[in-house]
């Protein structure tokens, strides 16, 4: 199975990120995660959980003025310690990001060909060779008539087609690590399926490691081998996609599953009471305790750390107890 024995491409260890302005808690609080060659790893959480900040850190992108402790390694090199020139090379050749909104991430006044070949040209590839690679990539992501497409502008493409262009651009430098931050959230459902099938096919063909960031647990389960669940800047659970659905160990994961509406079930979704912890709050114990129906007095006092329970990593004091009905 890819990933279990493969080389580690992304290795984040105890990453803590604090914003410059006076937030009460860090945006990321001791995050550790791994992505191996050929592996698809999901990073799931709701708004404010820190999932996007985590994925961006892999490219050395931190919020303005933020301070970070811990390490972020891509193929063994510490990203947070890289000088600017090395960082640019990393983003060009080793790790690439597919962002959520292609209209906001692709320069609207430049041609699609310029976008796809930008990294290659900056890395010294001759124009003709770069254009040929770009044509092959557009072909691979299913853009009709790639040669003409290279000369067109972003506004001439639909959202789904432009997201394929972004995937082509991300793959241009031949990265070993692909980061995808809600890559299909802005798309229609039928378009989402198409973009996901392209993304996962190319990832499998090339043996690329994928960190797939999403708020959608079902989508993550459909795409990924292994899933990390984040809440309030921390990883609260990590296990295989199948395991997560069959037996969630953290009450927040169980709550998310129960809140997800199911098409084939008459059982209505159940909300998780309360609301997520804002950056202005820094609860003493478990950040989820205030919303947790299983919370015990010690949960509000003691901060649970991620620990192995039956082969699963979970940050809950009561993880040994069965939590789902």
């Amino acid at each position, binding site marked *: 199975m890819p990933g279990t024995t493969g080389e580690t491409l992304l290795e984040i260890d105890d990453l803590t990120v604090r914003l410059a302005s006076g937030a009460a808690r860090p945006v990321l609080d001791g995050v550790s995660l791994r992505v191996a060659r050929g592996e698809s790893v999901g990073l799931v959480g709701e708004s404010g959980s820190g999932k996007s900040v985590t994925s961006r850190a892999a490219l050395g992108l931190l919020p303005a003025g933020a301070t970070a402790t811990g390490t972020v390694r891509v193929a063994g090199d510490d990203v947070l310690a890289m000088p600017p020139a090395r960082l640019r090379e990393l983003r060009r050749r080793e790790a690439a990001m597919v962002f959520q909104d292609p209209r906001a991430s692709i320069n609207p006044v430049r041609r699609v060909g310029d976008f796809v070949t930008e990294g290659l040209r900056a890395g010294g590839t001759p124009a003709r060779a770069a254009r040929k690679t770009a044509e092959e990539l557009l072909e691979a992501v299913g853009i009709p008539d790639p040669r003409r497409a290279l000369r067109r502008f972003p506004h001439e493409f639909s*959202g789904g087609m432009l997201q394929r262009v972004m995937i082509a651009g991300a793959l241009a430098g031949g990265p070993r690590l692909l980061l995808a931050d809600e890559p299909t959230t802005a798309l229609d459902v039928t378009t989402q399926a198409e973009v*996901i099938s392209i993304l996962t096919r190319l990832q499998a063909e090339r043996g690329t490691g994928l960190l797939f960031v999403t708020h959608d647990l079902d989508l993550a389960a*459909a795409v990924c081998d292994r899933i990390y669940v984040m809440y309030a800047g921390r990883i609260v659970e990590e296990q295989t996609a199948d395991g997560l659905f069959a037996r969630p160990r953290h009450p927040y994961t169980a709550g998310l599953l129960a809140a997800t509406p199911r098409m084939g*079930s008459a059982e209505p*979704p159940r909300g998780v009471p309360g*609301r997520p912890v804002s950056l202005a709050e820094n609860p003493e114990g478990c950040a989820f305790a205030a919303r947790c129906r299983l919370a015990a007095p010690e949960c509000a006092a003691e901060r649970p750390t991620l620990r192995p329970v039956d082969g699963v990593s979970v940050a809950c004091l009561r993880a040994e107890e069965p939590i789902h009905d």
Partner: protein
Amino acid sequence: MTEQPVLAVEGLRKTFGDHAAVDDVSFAVPPGGSLAIVGESGSGKTTTARMLVGLERPSAGRVLVDGADRTAPPRGRTARLARARAIQMVFQDPYLSLDPRVTVADAVEEPLRLHFDLDPAARRARRDELLDRVGLGEREAAALPRRLSGGQRQRVALARALAVEPRALVLDEATSALDVSIQAQIVELLRDLRASLGVAYVFVSHDLSLVRHVADDLLVLRRGRTVEAGRAAAVLDGPRHPYTRLLLDSVPRPGWDPARIAADRRALD
């Protein structure tokens, strides 16, 4: 069905230039009923919703509220107020639909002042009752919208819409901008409100997985036209039209096969 629908549209059509955004759409919502209108972008679902509340004028067809023709935009204050009393709309983004300078309490009192002749004490009592119905307390009442979370703001939008005791609510992607754990709270609230107040819903959404939990009936739109309509559970369990089937297959789940869906989608075009 002998009961007069609270809301009915017949042959509704809206063209922009030579493009028909909505093309011959008909449906009826019984009192206290709930109809989901589902489609992707460009399906005409939002244009349909806007015609129901009078934000767009139909190019053809009729909108009937309690049997009375409301197709033309209301003229004059009395007609406008009467229309607002009948149907209210809740939008997707509660960050944009509330005035940032007005407290929650004042935002809910505004429609009460406009529509009812209540003395201040009675108005405040009614306001508190409405806020309580949607699960908001005194602390939220005194707050400005920016102090509230997305889910709380959507509760305020609901309280405001319900203030006029409308016969029907048009919910345009009203839960789409919310996190899943909060969306489910609002879905629960919508179920409660319909059960206790008997208000009818037109629930406009791109999200098929929500439909069964908020609606009795379902209308699937594609490129302005109805492709399938029926009882929500029946359509979801046994879709007849290949497009409905494609939409259902597209919802991610374990064992999901995006490559097959992509092939089905191309076959449909």
